[in-house]
């Protein structure tokens, strides 16, 4: 069946359109996802998620236990406790809150506990700032979480529900974060299509299913959970004789997550008629492009509109939006960029003394591509600085000159877009 012919199980007329911002969309998705425990602490621009969710609880619209913790460190800690008890757990944060959580982020993934965290991306202090960039997300890139970036409010809703499914998949069993750009998405109203509650319930297979493990003192497989019927110790001390063997499977499960993200993307398509590329990457006019721009999050929308304009002028430019930052889609990048001559990575975060994190990952992929396109890093949008279509045009114009020249010197490979002076 070709894509055009597919009739989703819930075509648009069977979905409900609601007018919400990104935070509200996530809160609504969580309400529909049969979440047992939400432990959260307010921080701009994530606050609306917590407020909206508190309303659902206050109105008795969900069975969820809402734990209004005294810090983000405790929010993530409580989620670890809840998930270890077999519950479906959720929390949300931004920036400083995420920084405070980091210690426990590594523990959640190391203990193989499925859960979902919404990160409303915001610049890290100092200077203190409340607006969007991806420096907070870059902070957690090695924490062992699946990290999915949404481009718009609809995708924020869709991805939040998907994230539970991906995270809880028996082959994955890793925590997952859903990223939306602060204010650009969190506070921007959009009409989105939502599924009926029971459709989400069925999609997730009802309440969370607990994975099974084998321990030598029970004959049968037992729940990987704090279960008085079959007691386990979770969070033991593992030293040089075992630590390594416990960490490697985390890496392998992250690889399996690539397939699961793709499957869930397809399944969602059959259910709702919506999908996002192959789930990992969302390419736009990349196939024959000489110049490919790589971006994550809401900026992809701006870039796409400019790409369209240049295509009309006959310029062979394309956009590759990374949806899954972890696991990083190395394979797709190599395949999709095999014919490109110049690749510009847009990094909404810095790594002083180094290129931006996204650039490094793309460079790692491209090292193995036959074509070896010229690679350049554009750092943009720090602290919420707007990315205007004009800036993207300026960037493409410069890239065209680089392409003509045929090389970029090392000292020109890290560029700042939209900064004064």
């Amino acid at each position, binding site marked *: 069946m070709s894509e055009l012919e597919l009739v989703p199980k819930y075509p648009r007329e069977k979905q409900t359109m609601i007018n919400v911002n990104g935070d509200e969309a996530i809160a609504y998705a969580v309400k529909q996802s049969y979440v047992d425990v939400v432990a959260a602490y307010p921080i701009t621009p994530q606050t609306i998620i917590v407020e909206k969710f508190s309303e659902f609880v206050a109105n008795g619209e969900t069975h969820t236990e809402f734990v209004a913790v005294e810090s983000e460190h405790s929010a993530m800690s409580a989620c670890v406790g*809840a998930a270890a008890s077999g519950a479906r757990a959720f929390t949300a944060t931004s920036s400083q809150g995420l920084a405070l959580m980091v210690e426990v982020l590594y523990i959640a993934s190391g203990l193989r506990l499925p859960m979902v965290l919404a990160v409303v991306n915001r610049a890290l202090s100092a200077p203190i700032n409340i607006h969007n960039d991806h420096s907070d997300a870059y902070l957690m890139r090695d924490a062992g979480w699946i990290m999915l970036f949404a481009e718009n409010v609809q995708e924020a809703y869709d991805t939040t529900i998907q994230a539970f499914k991906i995270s809880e998949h028996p082959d994955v069993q890793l925590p997952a974060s859903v990223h939306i750009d602060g204010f650009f998405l969190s506070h921007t109203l959009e009409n989105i299509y939502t599924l009926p509650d029971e459709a989400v319930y069925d999609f997730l297979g009802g309440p969370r299913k607990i994975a099974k493990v084998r321990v030598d003192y029970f004959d049968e497989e037992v729940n990987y959970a704090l279960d008085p019927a079959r*007691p386990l110790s979770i969070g033991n001390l593992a030293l040089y004789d075992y630590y390594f063997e416990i960490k490697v499977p985390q890496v392998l499960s992250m690889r399996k997550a690539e397939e699961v993200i793709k499957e869930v993307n397809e399944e969602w398509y059959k259910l709702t008629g919506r999908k996002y590329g192959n789930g990992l990457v969302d390419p736009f006019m990349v196939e024959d492009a000489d110049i490919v721009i790589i971006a994550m999050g809401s900026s992809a929308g701006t870039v796409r509109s400019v790409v369209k304009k240049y295509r009309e002028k006959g310029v062979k430019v394309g956009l590759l939006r990374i949806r899954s930052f972890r696991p990083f889609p190395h394979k797709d990048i190599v395949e999709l960029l095999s014919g490109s001559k110049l690749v510009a990575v847009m990094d909404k975060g810095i790594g002083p003394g180094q290129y931006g994190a996204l650039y490094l990952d793309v460079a790692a992929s491209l090292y193995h591509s036959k074509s070896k396109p010229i690679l350049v890093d554009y750092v943009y949008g720090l602290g919420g600085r707007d990315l205007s279509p004009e800036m993207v045009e300026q960037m493409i114009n410069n890239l065209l000159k680089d392409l003509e020249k045929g090389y970029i010197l090392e000292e020109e490979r890290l560029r700042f877009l939209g900064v004064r002076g």
Partner: protein
Amino acid sequence: MVVKTLPEIQVKKGEPPYKIWIFEPGEKKELPLIFNLRQLAEQRRPALLPGHRMCAGCAAPIVVKLASFAFRGPTIVVTATGCLEVSTTIYPYTSWALPWIHNAFENAAATASGIEAAIKAMKKTGRLKYENVDVVVFAGDGGTYDIGFQALSGMAERGHDVLYILYDNEAYMNTGIQRSGGTPKYAWTTTSPVGRVIPGKSENKKPIADIMVAHRIPYVATATPAHWMDLVKKVRKGIEVNGPAFIHALSSCDRGWRHEESISVEVLRRAVDTCYFPLWEWSPETGYLLTDRSLVIARNPSLKQPIEKFLEVQGRFRHLLRPENKELVKQLQEYVDATWNDLLKRASNAPR
């Protein structure tokens, strides 16, 4: 190599010497409190199994075992990073006979909050396999007075139904005897060394149990494993109340306190006999009540021992016994007397 055989533990009837605690789904029986030693030996097994690697003479496992005699049914245990955690769960082994989790150093109370919330959500939706599951935390003084205090205070304020047991060995022992907010004044530790100018820790112990009373949670108590019946009773009360409960158990550490392994329990007895560590309980309904030996001392003040009795058996206070430090001991005595008198005023069962 010397091959030592473990002593045969005589269990005449009932339970095997050691066992994993299993509560089959739907099981309803509530475990009774047992104070008859013979019955206890026959019918009950501690939740901490042998083979753990805490030092010989450490009081912390005694605290845990005694506390577990007071567990009433399905129970989940949370432990903060520290000696107890690292020494009882060296992968691939564990000494815990019931479901146990360790998250990090400062977040045992937050982890317990999440577990309790999960239990509530499961119960609400008919997915809890038992009528009730109790949550008990064991955390050291570092994980309680200092780095973990915020999480503890938050848990208390939010009213989670969790019993938090502090095993207080008065320093960061796991990292090698550093001072904590629970280290007493003038005690030697590796970060409050006894130097030519400074005679050990300069500050007094933080009154952690009183701070928990100030949270006005349903139950707060102090205990030591030297007063075992008192401890067991208090743990059961802490589990039975609806909402947070806090038990401050003093726990001698022969490594850090620098005493003979064989006198761990005796040191704790002296802590109570000198009124350095009085035994009491508090609830919003009863206020402060002295218990066990401390009540006896209140009724018969001549039983109160001088502070030297507590200091003299511990190397961490050895410098205080030098003649030139008499003044410091006097100060400590005055501090103990003042806090004891203050408690006598507050305790409604103290003789007037």
